């Protein structure tokens, strides 16, 4: 078991939902695969999917839904098996 950081690859607005009326893509404590989308970042009129990049458990989200993030900012932590 090791901890892995999920960082924002570029600046923008971080969203945890596909749309405002939908549930969060991933809950804290949820098991994910490497290609699981954990959130979206909006910039330059486009939404980009942020993937877990490794299989494991999302232990915590470090930023709120709909917040402005900088490139490299910690979005969530992942416990990798």
């Amino acid at each position, binding site marked *: 078991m090791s901890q892995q950081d999920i960082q924002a*690859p570029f600046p923008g607005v971080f969203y945890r939902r596909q749309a405002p009326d939908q549930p969060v893509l991933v809950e804290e404590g949820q098991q994910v695969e490497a290609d699981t989308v954990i959130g979206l970042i909006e*910039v*330059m009129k486009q939404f980009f999917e942020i993937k877990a990049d490794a299989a494991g458990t999302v232990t915590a989200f470090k930023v709120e839904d709909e917040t402005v993030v900088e490139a490299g900012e910690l979005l969530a932590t992942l416990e990798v098996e």
Partner: protein
Amino acid sequence: MTIDVIKPGLATSIQDTGRQGNYHLGIPPSGGMDQRSLRAANLLLGNPEGAAVLECALMGPELQFTESRCVAACGAEMTPKVDGEPQPLNEVFRVPAGSTLSFDFVKAGARLYLAIEGGIDVPEKLGSRSTYSLGSLGGLEGRPLQAGDQLDLMPAATSTQEGRRLPELLVPNFSKHYMLRVMSGIYDHRLTDESRERFYEEDWTVASEADRIGYRMKGGSQLSFIDREPPFGAGDDPSNIVDACYPMGSIQVPSGSEPIILHRDAVTGGGYAMIGTVISADMNWVGQVQPHQKIRFVRVGLEEALAARAEYQQLMAALRQMP
């Protein structure tokens, strides 16, 4: 000799010094948004100043080189890496055959310019290799890079020197809060005095919609226009005018709420009042502002704008003469 695009980055496109002389036909110049950094990268490498390079916005691409070539990266601070090993910005370095060039997170600025020895070989369209995505013109099939693309290169330059470095004085200093100098636009008189005063006193935040077409600003007060009877051909909104030509750098404020600075891929005309124009010397900086950073508009007159242009031309002359 080709370069394979493994990952395209966020909005990476082929750009040069732009497509001149077709503005009256509705075709904007395109080209690198920060011309200073684009030209610096080419000059550093010994390429022709206007060779086609990659403009990498906010996140760099991952590229595999089939042959060894020298490169130079100028502009936004994203550390280049060859097979994971950090390389200097603003300095010529070699990418060996079979190696992968990638980039770290952007620390400052918004756009990095990657010049490759010889320059990128795509057909010239209307005299330029620049990508104009809205018009599907130039670059690689008129669009930003995609995974799986292959880039051809022109023959390597003969004067490339590994380790050649941009003099420290010529390296731009990026900020998180820019002062953009603005000259009054031809529709400045449509604003109320109070509104105009506030426009130049408040901080504006760059919206996430900022791209090569225009930079939209949020966070300032709603602008108010002087009451009038809409002239024939103009829309009813107070921010509307009878369609006219838009200068590059001009600022329009649809419905008075969010100012937009038009940049190198913008439409060349339309029906919004232009309340001011960002001076040409500051347009390179606009291309380096990240979404959510702050700017303030600073009003200047013609003499100050021309002095700033002369200063910029001196800086470019120094770049052309660098050791």
